[in-house]
């Protein structure tokens, strides 16, 4: 008998977890709004950054069914390496499954500092971490060791996949979205994240953090946002209940039959956009721009958004007619307004 070991399933568990830690950075933190870019497998498993790379959030994720103190200590070593490196990070986060509750002083917390860990486990953690840093069993205390530990944040994963997604989308559908649909969106993000690791950057070096962009191992918040809203809008095509209020300026003065025809035409065209493998690039850009404009100018009327949009983007795809684009803007606007 031959049993397959170390196959994709283990990798899948690990990358699922890295994706979760990325979504945690983008949506679950009080300072999530600042984080715009995520680099994958460069500084660490996942590192968040603001637009000009002046602030960095470093994350090591560890998905292990059991995490004894020694495993925790071992996992902290990459964060420590970054701590003493020439680049300064503003947060050092260890993203892990729920720890055994006995390890903790206040076991109700899911996000906590090193001080919330009991003395007995601390000893185990420090022993292993020192070993890892020093490369031997000698007991000398590495530089800034205590300092580092006081800076680490432990974050436990205790949420469903759909919760992670919902937290970043800030978009509300009129219809219920099933857990499976969220899971498939999650998988798309995970696959995109995993594919970033296909390049080789071992031993490459940089001076300033922003130079990391040249390796193309990053994903932006706006991409993730566009993905989500795009999927949710797609599900609404031909099934959005009623007419989005923002679209009323277009149908004004038309009789009921004309309105029906117009709505059907817009839905037909949108469905073409979602099915057309050739026109996808332009449609994706269009979605991205619409979302950006609406997020920056939530008070603006649909028609105002449209005017700015066509001044910035040239739409060549024949089925993306003026009405269709206006309908699309109205749908996105409705979803964003309902989110609060």
């Amino acid at each position: 008998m031959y049993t397959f070991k170390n196959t994709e399933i283990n990798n899948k568990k690990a990358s699922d977890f890295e994706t979760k830690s990325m979504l945690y950075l983008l949506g679950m933190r009080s300072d999530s709004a600042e984080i715009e870019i995520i680099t994958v497998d460069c500084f660490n498993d996942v590192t968040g950054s603001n637009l000009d790379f002046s602030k960095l959030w470093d994350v090591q994720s560890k998905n292990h069914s059991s995490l004894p103190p020694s495993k925790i200590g071992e996992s902290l070593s990459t964060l420590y390496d970054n701590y003493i490196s020439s680049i300064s990070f503003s947060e050092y986060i260890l993203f892990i499954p729920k720890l055994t509750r006995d390890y903790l002083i206040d076991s109700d917390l899911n996000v906590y500092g090193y001080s919330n860990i009991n003395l007995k486990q601390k000893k185990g953690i420090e022993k292993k971490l020192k070993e890892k840093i020093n490369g031997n069993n000698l007991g000398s205390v590495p530089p800034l060791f205590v300092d580092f530990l006081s800076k680490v944040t432990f974050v436990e994963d205790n949420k469903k996949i759909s919760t992670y997604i919902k937290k970043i989308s800030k978009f509300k559908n009129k219809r219920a979205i099933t857990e499976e649909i969220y899971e498939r969106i999650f998988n798309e993000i995970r696959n995109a994240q995993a594919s970033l690791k296909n390049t080789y950057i071992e031993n490459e070096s940089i001076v300033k953090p922003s130079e990391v962009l040249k390796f193309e191992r990053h994903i932006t918040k706006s991409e993730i946002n566009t993905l989500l809203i795009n999927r949710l809008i797609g599900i609404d095509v031909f099934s959005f209940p009623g007419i989005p209020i923002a679209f009323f300026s277009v149908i004004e003065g038309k009789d009921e039959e004309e309105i029906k025809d117009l709505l059907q035409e817009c839905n037909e065209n949108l469905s073409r956009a979602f099915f057309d493998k050739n026109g996808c690039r332009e449609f994706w850009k269009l979605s991205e721009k619409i979302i950006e404009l609406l997020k920056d100018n939530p008070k603006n009327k649909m028609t105002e958004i449209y005017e700015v949009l066509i001044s910035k983007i040239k739409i060549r795809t024949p089925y993306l007619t003026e009405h269709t684009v206006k309908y699309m803007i109205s749908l996105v606007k409705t979803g964003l307004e309902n989110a609060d």
Partner: protein
Amino acid sequence: MQIKKIAFGDSQEAFIESRLTGGVNVIYSDDNNRGKTLVMQGLMFSLGYESIFPSSFHYKDKYFYSEIEVNGESYEFLRKKNTVALKTDGAMQIFNSVGELRYFLDKFVFRIPKVQKDNRATLVDLSLLYELFFIGQDSRNPSGLISKGQFNKQDFKNMVHALAGLSTSTANLSDIQATKNKIAELKIKLKETKKKISIIKQNPNVAEVFSKTFDSNKVQEKIKSISGINEKLSKVRRSRQREINRKSKLEQLVSELKSLNRDLSEGNVQCGDCGSDKIVYSNTDLTFEVSNIDVRNGILNSIYENITQKVELINDLTREINFLQDQLNDEMEEAPPSFQQIILYSEQVVSEKNYDNDSFSLSREIESLQDQLASSIEIDDALKTDKKTFDLNLLNDMSSIYKSIDPNGNLTFEDIFTKRDSTFSGSEGQEFYFCKLIALSRALNHDFPLIVDSFRDGELSTNKEESMLNIYSKLSRQVILTSTLKDEEYNSDKYKNKNEINAIDYSLHSDCKILDKQNREGFIDLISNFNGIVL
């Protein structure tokens, strides 16, 4: 479902009722004609019930508004004549008929059951559905339905069964051969009818007959009366044609979409090193595909749903056309023979009449028989037993409710409708409706509020009223009742003293004048939410 607000009026005067709670509400007054019934009728009308207003009330000039809440989501209805606008958070929909409204309600707001009608499963109309929980003041008759639409009391029973999850099964296997024969027979008839039409169209005497008799007064009058029907007819036919066009566009779209999303299968690229066909075109500005399987399947399913709905709408319109054609035929039969010819040729009614009346109904009949054939299943004995058990439980519950309000009463219930010849004295009719309403709400556990206009009809005794109110307040659902009090009852604050009742006093409204200039502004505010849409 909970009623939050009721309003009606026009740009001059209006009435707004926003005091309703989720428990038992009693709207009362010390005298009649204080507007209680109009408010109830206005509420139901706004939700799509047929018009049951008194003839003195000019409802056609008024707007009827209501706000309801279903599963935490709020819906605002605005109706004028037969046009209804429905507004939800961020979206609005306009329907030019109540029939169309029901498809939307069924899909997004609350489930509307289907029953077998003309051999096809049809959504019941809203008036029939609302009879589950609404008892109007007039036309009460325990042996039949209060609202007389195209559905009858057997449909009501079928609807109750459908709501209880006991749907009617269709044709019996042994009927299949008979159905097949019938279809063949009808097809021959259809062919013959179509042949006749073309012969009439070529009649050479048209011009002559036309000029001879056209000038007579009688003919002119008749033309006038018929042209109204004709106008309506052509409007409905246009609507139907547009729906048919939309439907075929959707059908074309499905095949177009499938081809848009096809990967080229003529040969494929492979990696020379490893043989993998996963060749990735790498670029920096597009990380994700434009859609995924959920989106694409979702769109296709919605299109299919849209097509099905269009088929139903087209059927509805065809039914309406047939109705108008019957009207037209009646008019024609009363006319002098020469006139008939005039009309036939001048308005092309003959082709309309024959085509729609015979060939259309024939093809519809064929269609529905084919449907029936396709979906025929064996009659399910188990289902029959289930229905019997359900009915029995329902009647038992009605009896026990009855005993609890009238321990010495003599009524027995054998059906949810009484026999045609049975007479009720005093408040018995009201008690019957009460038991039916409560038993149905318990058996089906439906989500609607219970609404009874004039719930003490027939001099209901104080004891019985107390017991009824008790039962109502224990239902933990919204109940809206209206009641006219006698002076002594009114003076003793009959309802105000009860904690579990939200008492709403209408006594201060002036006689026969519930609409008021003071509410005008508030009403215009409510309507302006509908983005200035003038129905």
